[in-house]
């Protein structure tokens, strides 16, 4: 447990020691603001809710989250610090989970910093704060899912650009897996229950569900098991490469 906390603290402080945290947070906040007010038409729709704000989260995360996760393992491998990390007296799972949790906590802070929009909408009208709370939770869970995918892919390469591009591609597939774009590959040969399961992998669909203000156990289990799966892949890849 100490190893986990140590990796977490080191990684988490690492974000704020480099410009990464500030660049990410500023770009994220500016982008959410622009999308909410200009593309989402926050004032035009004339309703006191944060739907135009949350609608763009999956798309912003698609590009911003792999930008955090791409360096997690690829950078360590490239600079050769991975050997040091792996020879430290901490179990490998602690390193994997610690890195992931630090990145997730950092994404959570960026998300929390969007609180002015919550204050504004409460000042302007009387929104349903339960829905907003559940949307924030959904957004946070979705960020974790993107991060877990990105971290696993980052462990497979030493090139951060490759990690970024592949992470975006995989995240995109998971995001739109409810659409015919992905389902058409499966409908002709796979049984219906499998097609529907693949359709249920869609981040957009789970996020849309949570965004309505209903937290379904299925959504929680989906995001939880997805993160567990990709962290396991991450663990296995690092473990195998360490030996080979």
């Amino acid at each position: 447990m100490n190893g986990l906390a140590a990796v977490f603290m080191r990684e988490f402080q690492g974000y704020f020691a480099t410009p990464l945290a500030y660049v990410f947070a500023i770009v994220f906040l500016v982008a959410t603001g622009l999308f909410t007010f200009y593309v989402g038409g926050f004032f035009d729709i004339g309703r006191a809710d944060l739907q135009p704000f949350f609608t763009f989260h999956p798309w912003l995360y698609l590009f911003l989250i792999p930008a955090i996760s791409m360096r997690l393992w690829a950078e360590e491998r490239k600079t050769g610090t991975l050997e040091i990390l792996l020879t430290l007296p901490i179990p490998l799972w602690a390193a994997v989970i610690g890195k992931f949790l630090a990145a997730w906590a950092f994404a959570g802070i960026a998300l929390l910093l969007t609180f002015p929009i919550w204050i504004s909408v409460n000042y302007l009208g009387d929104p349903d704060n339960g829905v907003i709370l559940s949307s924030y939770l959904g957004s946070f869970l979705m960020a974790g899912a993107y991060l877990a995918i990105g971290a696993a892919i980052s462990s497979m390469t030493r090139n951060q650009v490759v990690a970024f591009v592949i992470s975006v591609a995989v995240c995109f597939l998971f995001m739109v897996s409810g659409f015919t774009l992905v389902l058409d590959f499966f409908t002709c040969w796979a049984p219906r229950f499998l097609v529907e399961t693949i359709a249920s992998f869609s981040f957009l669909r789970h996020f849309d569900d949570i965004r309505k203000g209903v937290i379904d156990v299925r959504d929680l289990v989906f995001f939880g098991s997805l993160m567990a799966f990709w962290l396991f892949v991450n663990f296995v890849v690092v473990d195998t490469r360490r030996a080979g």
Partner: protein
Amino acid sequence: MSASSRKVNAGLSILLAAVLFICVTIITNYFLGFARIDLTENRLFTLSQGTLNTLRDIDETITLRFFFSRELANEFPQIRLYGERVRELLRAQILRSSTPNPSPKKKIKL
């Protein structure tokens, strides 16, 4: 252990994990339909007390017919999601009625 057998082991364990992940998703999709927390202020997605009272007091048999084409809905994820929500609402109402009898399910292919 040689490097290649380690790689095979790693591949196998990732494959197993993927299968497990898909199984968990299938199981939760099919069996955990009712466990949810409604955080909306007006409990928009929960059956109200009035509905529950009405359901309890109905004496006659009521047949619900739900028409939904999976083939057509495949093109539109939102509609598929909406269809599922309607189906779950109907199922919840059936379960809360005085003599729940959701068994006669007929699937008609369109």
